[in-house]
């Protein structure tokens, strides 16, 4: 092909050269053509590797080696001697050259690590902290000191106490405008405060900080069994443990009581027994258990009476023969004969007790033939009008039995949900509390005239609840689904099944379980348009899930599922397109954008991939890397995208094992740096390192050969065979982007904003980004008029009294509200302390 082009192009170029008056040799022409056809000729994007530093052992080096050996063999005196040497040597070097060996800190750490006694160890670390040479060193030593169990426990207990009293104070202060109080308006504030306090005290639970402190105290006891403070710590553990047991028991008692209210006494007993296990001394737990047992005993007593039979009533000979016939037909489950007999006897004994039995027998016959709903209709008729009241009562009881009348259970569950939904719309979660809070302040300030304001508040609350119900009903549909499924499982061919299928389809659709919704819509015989609409919703759901999926495998799974299951839906086209995109070579491997590389120069620099810095200098004359950056196709191949006058062109380069290893080491190193960086300096979502860096890269496990294809089939046995371990490819399919590329415009988004209703007006507040002086910004209007304000920590009081001032500027003056600074729940694994 290239030859053809050369043959065609040569005369054209010759002619062009003649016209231009430039003599052109055949060799030059080939070079020009080559350049046109290959815009990146022989370009080497890699820097020449830097020379390995040469090292000549001196006294410092010898000492460093000895220090490590002595630390490993636990020769503490020798370690201290080496430490002294490095202190002296650094002092000398500082004086002479203004530089130091940089080894003193390491020597200090090795010396301190050998101290077994906790107090002495911490004292040594505090001493080192005083002499810390850099902010990083200071942070490191602070982290070591704070990592101590007892220190953490004490801090947590202090935080818990601060939060408790601070929370109480804040509730009091939230309605105290210092300027207003100074002018004598404090009755409304006092009322609001009292109500808030009453509610808060009723909700008192063991705080997460106290639970963390308890765990840390127990760790401390285990780690330092001979610590002199252990007696005091044991006593604190006892108190906290009792609090914890009380809290656990209280929760179980609440559940037991909730179950007892619903007449579910088995469940009530279960939770009451659990409560008694948590806190055997709890009187409430014993009371709840006794109550549940009492009800269960009553049930048992009733159930024991049920298996009793009555004496056979006296009947005429003819009646006796007919009864026997019925009994035989019933025993043989001969539905046809039973039905015929029942109808005849019903006519024959009209208005006599036997007609009730005949009607009921007809219902049994229908039941035997699987016509449950028809049978139930007869029982219902019997419950309304029977000759004997016993027969009527029995029929009514049968209809109430959840085992027999599953449809009634289903309708009951539906009705219950509707009622709960209406209750939610009308009352919300805590209407009474909200009303009391709003009413107290408003009534105190404005008297009966505030009722109008209160009405407005309630209208807003109602509207918000209604919106919540319409968009995402918080009242669970699970009981309806359970009852519906139970009905259709038992009576799949019943005439009412279609209605149940329809409700189930809607419920599953509401919950976003489209697969099931479609299946039930099809069973219910819903119109094709409806089924198609649900299918489209399901397809869109899968497409969204694919877009949100972090890894390629999951994305592929969602997209292929979409294409397989909803091939006819309009969304399937988009999914196919996405799959095709993903299949392209350039969309595989570890991809790093130019922006990401520019933000992390270590990764592309001489100690990373070794790319030339000129590729990133913005100068197209010396070739510039394209925005797509580079793509590590495998651990031995790098695909570089260049920005050329002809558009983006890619070129593949081999990578040596050394370069590849160097790159991965640098990537992990950079990840570590990001993790250590200050919260105000690193990108959002980068806690613990670079955002979403694959864990396999972080763990740097040695690469193992890929399994043979025949072993890769997902049979159950491969699990056992793979116990030896199959590895992942070293170069994972992943994309590393800068924060702005990952979340375009994210840097300029507003912080989360909360809205609140105060009387008939509004207020909005949002947290300010960390690092700014203020920590909250608010605008709105309250009963005193419009305001705009900011919550400011008081610099002079910072670290002394944790108080912020909320300052509201308003026409004609300003208000100042003091607020105690409360620590937010911090630390890992909050669920382990709940």
């Amino acid at each position, binding site marked *: 092909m290239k030859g053809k082009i050369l043959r065609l192009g040569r005369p054209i170029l010759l002619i062009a050269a003649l016209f231009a008056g430039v003599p052109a040799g055949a060799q030059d022409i080939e070079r020009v053509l080559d350049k046109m056809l290959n815009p990146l000729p022989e370009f080497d994007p890699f820097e020449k590797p830097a020379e390995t530093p040469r090292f000549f052992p001196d006294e410092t080096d010898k000492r460093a080696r000895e220090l490590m050996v002595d630390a490993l063999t636990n020769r503490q005196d020798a370690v201290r001697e080496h430490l002294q040497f490095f202190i002296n040597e650094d002092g000398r070097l500082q004086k002479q050259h203004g530089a130091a060996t940089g080894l003193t800190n390491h020597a200090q750490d090795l010396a301190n690590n050998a101290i077994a006694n906790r107090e002495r160890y911490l004292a040594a670390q505090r001493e080192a902290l005083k002499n810390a040479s850099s902010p990083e060193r200071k942070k490191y030593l602070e982290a070591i000191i704070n990592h101590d169990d007892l220190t953490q426990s004490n801090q947590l207990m202090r935080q818990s106490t601060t939060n408790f009293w601070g929370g109480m104070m804040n509730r009091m202060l939230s309605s105290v405008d210092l300027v207003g109080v100074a002018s004598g308006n404090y009755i409304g504030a006092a009322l609001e405060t009292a109500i808030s306090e009453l509610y808060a005290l009723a909700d008192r639970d063991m705080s997460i900080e106290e639970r963390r402190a308890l765990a840390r105290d127990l760790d401390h006891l285990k780690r330092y069994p001979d610590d002199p403070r252990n007696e005091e710590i044991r006593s604190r553990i006892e108190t906290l443990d009792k609090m914890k047991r009380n809290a656990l028991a209280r929760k179980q008692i609440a559940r037991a009581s909730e179950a007892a209210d619903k*007449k579910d006494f088995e469940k009530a007993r279960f939770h009451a027994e659990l409560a008694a296990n948590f806190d055997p001394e709890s009187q409430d737990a014993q009371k709840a258990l006794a109550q549940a047992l009492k009800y269960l005993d009553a049930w048992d007593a*009733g*159930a024991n*009476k*049920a*298996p*009793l*039979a*009555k*004496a*056979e*009533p006296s009947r005429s000979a003819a009646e006796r023969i007919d*009864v*026997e016939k*019925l*009994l*035989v037909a*019933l*025993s*043989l*489950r001969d539905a046809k004969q039973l039905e015929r007999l029942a109808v005849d006897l019903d006519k024959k004994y009209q208005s006599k007790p036997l007609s009730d*039995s005949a009607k009921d*027998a007809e*219902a049994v016959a229908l039941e*035997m033939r699987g016509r449950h709903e028809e049978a139930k209709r007869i029982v219902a008729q019997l419950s309304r009008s029977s000759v004997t009241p*016993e027969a009527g009562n*029995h029929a*009514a*009881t*049968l209809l*109430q*039995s959840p*085992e*027999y009348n599953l449809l009634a259970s289903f309708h009951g569950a539906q009705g219950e949900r509707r*009622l709960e939904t209406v*209750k939610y719309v*009308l*009352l919300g979660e805590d*209407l*009474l509390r909200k009303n009391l809070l709003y009413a107290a302040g408003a009534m105190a300030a404005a008297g*009966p*005239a505030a*009722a*109008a304001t*209160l*009405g407005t508040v*309630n209208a807003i609350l109602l509207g918000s609840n209604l919106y919540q119900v319409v968009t995402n009903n918080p009242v669970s549909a699970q009981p309806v*689904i*359970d*009852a519906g*499924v139970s009905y259709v499982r*038992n009576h799949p061919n019943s005439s009412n099944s279609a209605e149940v299928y329809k409700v189930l389809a809607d419920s599953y659709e509401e919950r976003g379980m489209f697969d099931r919704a479609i299946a039930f819509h099809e069973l219910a015989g819903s119109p094709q348009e409806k089924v198609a609409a649900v299918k489209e919703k399901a397809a869109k759901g899968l497409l969204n899930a694919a877009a949100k999926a972090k890894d390629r495998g999951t994305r592929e799974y969602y997209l292929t599922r979409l294409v397989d299951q909803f091939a006819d839906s309009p969304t399937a086209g988009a999914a196919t397109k996405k799959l095709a995109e993903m299949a392209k070579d350039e969309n595989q491997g570890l991809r790093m954008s130019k922006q990401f590389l520019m933000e992390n120069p270590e990764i592309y620099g001489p100690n990373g991939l070794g790319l030339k810095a000129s590729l990133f200098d913005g100068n197209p004359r010396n070739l510039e890397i394209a925005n797509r950056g580079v793509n590590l196709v495998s651990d031995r191949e790098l695909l570089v995208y260049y920005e050329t006058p002809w558009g983006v062109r890619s070129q593949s380069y081999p990578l040596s094992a050394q370069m590849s290893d160097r790159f991965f080491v640098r990537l992990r190193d950079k990840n570590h740096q990001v993790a250590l960086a200050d919260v105000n300096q690193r990108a959002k979502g980068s806690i613990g390192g670079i955002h979403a860096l694959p864990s396999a890269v972080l763990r740097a496990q040695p690469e193992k050969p890929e399994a043979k294809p025949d072993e890769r089939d997902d049979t*159950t*046995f491969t*699990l*056992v065979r*793979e*116990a*030896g371990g*199959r590895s992942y490819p070293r170069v994972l399919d992943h994309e590393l982007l800068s924060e702005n590329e990952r979340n375009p415009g994210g840097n300029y988004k507003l912080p989360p904003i909360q809205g609140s209703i105060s009387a008939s007006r509004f207020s909005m507040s949002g947290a300010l980004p960390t690092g700014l002086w203020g920590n909250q910004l608010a605008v709105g209007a309250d009963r005193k008029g419009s305001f705009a304000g900011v919550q400011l920590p008081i610099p002079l009081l910072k670290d002394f009294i944790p108080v912020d001032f909320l300052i509201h500027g308003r026409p004609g003056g300003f208000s100042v509200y003091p607020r105690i600074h409360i620590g937010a729940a911090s630390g890992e694994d909050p669920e382990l302390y709940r």
Partner: protein
Amino acid sequence: MKPAFELPSIFIALFGSLCLYLAGCSSRAAAPDIRYAPAGDLLDIIKDFQRLAREDSYRFPIPKDITGVNIMKATLLRLQDYEKKNPRQFTDIIQFNKALALERLREYDQAALAFRKVAESEGRLATEAAKNAEILDTFVRIVAKPLSAEDPFKHMEGLDEKVGAWNQLIQKHQGTPYEFLARVEEERIDRAKVAFVEANRYRLKEGNQLVVLGYSQLVTKHRQSKNIHRFLLDFGDFYALLAKEYASQYDPEGLSFDFKAFDQFAKSALKLYSEVAQMDGILEKIEAQGKIEAMRGLLEKITRLNR
């Protein structure tokens, strides 16, 4: 200033809301005591029994009567009480229905005995009872066939023979209640086979694989059974056991531990638990949800130990 007459209307609205709320909170009506009233005459007892006694005991559990008690057990007690109170009345009918209840409770020898008593009388019931007694004799023979307690392979052979025998009965009595009873028995033997292999897996070559194979076959063959969710949970439990055994054998904090192997066992267990947890209207759902949480805890613990 707003007009004062708005005040009562707002309080009325609030009061109304409050009443509605309290009405919703009030406990439901107490269960009617009539549920526990003694059953009526024999016709009432048999009607209630036949109304609820499903023929397909393989797919559905034994129903409960209006008091929430197993209908077979309740009927047996009621018939016993009826016999006491009305001696020598409708004896054959009582014995026939007792036999029906007993066979559903898998008391085949007692049921056969009751049927034989009925067979001695005359009429349609006697013919049917004789036929049923004969079938139940076959049931008793298969159940009573001894299994080798010495040799595990002969024990397995014995179980296989029993499965074969039940299968023949299923074919023979297709469409009758005895088909379902035979299915129930076949299912029990299939489950027993898996349990036996599981208990002896370390004595057998590739024992773990055999157990997995056994469970896979069990859940495939008995998809329609009322016990399918229990089998799925048991299968999940076996994978969970394998995961725990792996973590005990190879210290998760050590270098020989292969997290991927552990993770695959755990994921297989989770897959089976999730299958049950997403089913609606079954009690096993609660158990499955708890097991998923437990497995999450184990995975988290081992992940951290291995880090």
